[in-house]
């Protein structure tokens, strides 16, 4: 029975601090005169540096009719500038033993290089260059448009779950741009041209719309000197548009959809609710929702797993998800993958019964304590991955949060009470504000499989 002892002892013994202090000690920030924000995360264990430049511009900032242009432009930034030939950027990084890439989401576009620490100046010079000096040719456009169409094929068209998610989002967001996929609708991607790309570039790429995050074996003073030399000389764009997006109206009617595809191997039910995101200076509700997602669907000890996978045995998998890093309203999501022989109707009903019971029973304090303990430990493990900390800042600062908000977040998570969690649950998990999706095999396939089984 030593495990009972270990279990009991562990909760008493593990006096983990709210460990953000450890991370905060490594973080320095300042702002250049032209408005470019800079965050430095120090880690001197290995002579490696990562430079990231995050733009406050993502797919939700695209003009109507040009879906996918933010991501298309991200690809095109690897073409030439006034002084660099197409492909020379990545070739130079590689020739210096470094790796580079970029990614786009709804609220941001980010570019990064990982390289030996003594090459920071080289990559900074090149990244600053392509912030304003991009030169594109018609050939670049046609070839790279084919590449992003193949990327859409790979990520979405070839994957029924991705197509289903796309439809779920489109139904969830009636009026907000989050309803349009980051990579773009295929028919609009096919029409993207040089002018679309350059318009997006000229509108959004400027130092006062960018955040530099440097992590690794660097000295903040050295980073400041280099940043001033290369980014500081780029004038701010005085005409930077405000990020005004059309917002969602209150959802007053439940929405449902069914997506059928013969390539579906495992049917499942997906459920989403419109939910508030982390707001600057007001992250408590988001923290409550994050803890709610962990309580309900954070792993094999969670409420839904216990109820639906272990007790009722109607599901092979259940999950609950909430991501509060978003400029505008986000979603709170559930998925239930039914057991063989359990229909989607039955699975959905079981999910709803379990949620209703949870709302009656309230928060299991012991489970909440375990989740909070894990979160404190996660802050210690996070010290092993400074690039992860760099990401945390980049995503937060492009989602409308401040550095103070990022630093406060771990403490806020620890401060949340069961009452706050249940209040957030009652506010968000309302049937009339839900979207329910069924991913199914098409009927023909179903019949065929039933015959062969």
């Amino acid at each position: 029975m030593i495990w009972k002892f270990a279990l009991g002892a562990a909760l008493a013994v593990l006096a983990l601090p709210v460990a953000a202090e450890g991370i905060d000690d490594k973080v320095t920030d300042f702002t250049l005169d032209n408005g470019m924000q800079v965050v430095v995360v120090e880690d001197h264990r290995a002579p490696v540096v990562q430079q990231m430049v995050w733009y406050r511009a993502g797919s939700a900032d695209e003009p109507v009719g040009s879906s996918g242009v933010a991501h298309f432009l991200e690809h095109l930034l690897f073409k030439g500038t006034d002084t660099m030939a197409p492909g020379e950027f990545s070739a130079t990084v590689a020739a210096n033993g470094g790796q580079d890439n970029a990614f786009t989401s709804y609220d941001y576009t980010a570019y990064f290089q990982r390289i030996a620490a003594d090459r920071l100046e080289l990559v900074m010079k090149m990244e600053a260059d392509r912030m304003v000096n991009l030169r594109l040719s018609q050939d670049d456009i046609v070839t790279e448009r084919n590449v992003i169409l193949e990327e859409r094929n790979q990520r979405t068209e070839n994957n029924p779950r991705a197509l289903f998610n796309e439809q779920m989002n489109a139904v969830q967001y009636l009026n907000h741009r989050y309803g349009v996929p980051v990579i773009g609708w295929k028919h609009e991607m096919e029409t993207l041209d040089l002018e679309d790309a350059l318009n997006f570039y000229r509108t959004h790429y400027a130092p006062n719309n960018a955040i530099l995050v440097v992590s690794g074996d660097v000295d903040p003073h050295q980073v400041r000197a280099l940043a001033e030399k290369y980014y500081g000389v780029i004038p701010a764009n005085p005409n930077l548009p405000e990020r005004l997006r059309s917002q969602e109206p209150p959802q007053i009617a439940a929405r449902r959809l069914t997506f059928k595809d013969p390539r579906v191997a495992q049917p499942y039910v997906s459920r989403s609710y419109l939910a508030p995101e982390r707001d600057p200076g007001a992250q408590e509700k988001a923290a409550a929702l994050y803890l709610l997602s962990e309580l309900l669907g954070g792993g094999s000890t969670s409420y839904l797993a216990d109820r639906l996978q272990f007790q009722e045995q109607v599901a092979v998998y259940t999950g609950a998800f909430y991501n509060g890093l978003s400029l505008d309203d986000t979603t709170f999501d559930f998925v239930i993958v039914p057991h063989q022989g359990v229909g989607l109707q039955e699975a959905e009903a079981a999910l709803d019964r379990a949620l209703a019971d949870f709302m009656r029973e309230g928060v299991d304090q012991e489970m909440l304590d375990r989740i909070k303990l894990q979160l404190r430990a996660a802050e210690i493990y996070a010290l092993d991955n400074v690039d992860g900390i760099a990401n945390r800042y980049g995503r937060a600062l492009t989602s409308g949060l401040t550095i103070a908000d990022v630093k406060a977040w771990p403490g806020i998570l620890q401060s949340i009470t069961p009452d706050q969690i249940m209040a957030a649950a009652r506010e968000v998990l309302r049937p009339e504000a839900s979207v329910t999706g069924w991913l199914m095999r098409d009927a023909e396939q179903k019949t065929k499989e039933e015959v062969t089984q």
Partner: protein
Amino acid sequence: MRAFVTALAAWVFAVLPALAEVKIQEVTSPGGIRAWLVEDHSIPFTALEIRFRGGTSLDAPGKRGSVHLMTALLEEGAGDLDAQAFARALESLAASFRFGSSDDAVSVSARFLTENRDDVIDLLRTTLHRPRFDQDAIDRVRAQVISSIRFDAKNPDAIAGNTFAAMVYGDHPYATDGKGTEQSVAALTRDDIVAAHRGVFARDRLYVGAAGDIAPQELGRILDRLFAELPEAGAPMPPKADVKIDGGVTVVEFDTPQSVALFGQPGIERHDPDFFAAYVMNQILGGGSFESRLMQEVREKRGLTYGVYSYLMPKDLAALYMGRVASANDRIAEAIKVIHAEWQRMATEGVTEEELKNAKTYLTGAYPLRFDGNSRIASILVGMQLDDLPIDYVATRNDRINAVTLEDVNRVARRLLKPDKLHFVVVGRPQGLASTGTN
């Protein structure tokens, strides 16, 4: 701009001395168990990577999927703890255990804080020695595995991988998916799971890497606590596989807009004297960076794909040289034609001095980037031991890369690359492609 770049490339060797600072110690426990360790006391936790050689290839005849299911069941209860009590105990210790199985090894990855290390090690010990394999857990996890097998049956990449393996490996365990089939997994009993456990966990196939906040003596104590009581020997290792590949194309009809192609030919062993030359050659041909010939020709010049790459795959019991590409059904034939032509061009023309220089500076410069954190370092340490590399390998690896000459690369390109043996398995509705016959 070009001159500027070249000047910078010249000081690339400035990076290298720092790598020697990754100081690897060999630790031998009082009970005689060995591990490699990189000590770093700056963060109060340790990453422990444990491997048992053999993996799913140790499945007994007719019991395909037993090692995979057994491994998945390790986190489903041990000692006095049933599945959920086990998960709660692990959460309360703020530690994580991950269990995995591949063709060549069963892996156990543990991460734990310094302050309650002994409690975590006790739990891990019970997990390895006294897993419960409760019938309800077996049935629950079996259902998850079968769900995943069905998923693979509709996944172009999994279909391509399984088709390729079946074509290449004959009746060797490598020929089929280690997860097993729906039928074989459905038939597994608790006795089969127990037998798989006995076959896998033995000292004669154990490898350990550790990194983080732990001293050698402490690690030695832990090694004995975890492993001293394991049996000396486990299930017999399977023989080497006969690799049989004829050039050509196999089309697997699957109704999806983008065809996925997996391609391959016989490869080169990890301990072949030409392995480093082959590694450098592959970096130039299709090594996954934007600069590779395949990426330049198929993506950058023609826009035929989002990604194309090739990789050496020296497994314990066979060696392949593989690659992957995906293109719309009406463009995959052209992508394959370009890849085949590049394979041929590399075999006959080799590489240029410029390409060799760039590949070396990239490979030597990128190597230190891998050592970024305790978990990554522990994985590298255990991987080196599985590959039977010397303990000073990290300090000498870049010298070995730099020692590769143009003649070496071009010799290995001629020797290794066999365009007439290169086989493409294409899953989709490719236009202008048909299967070339049976292999």
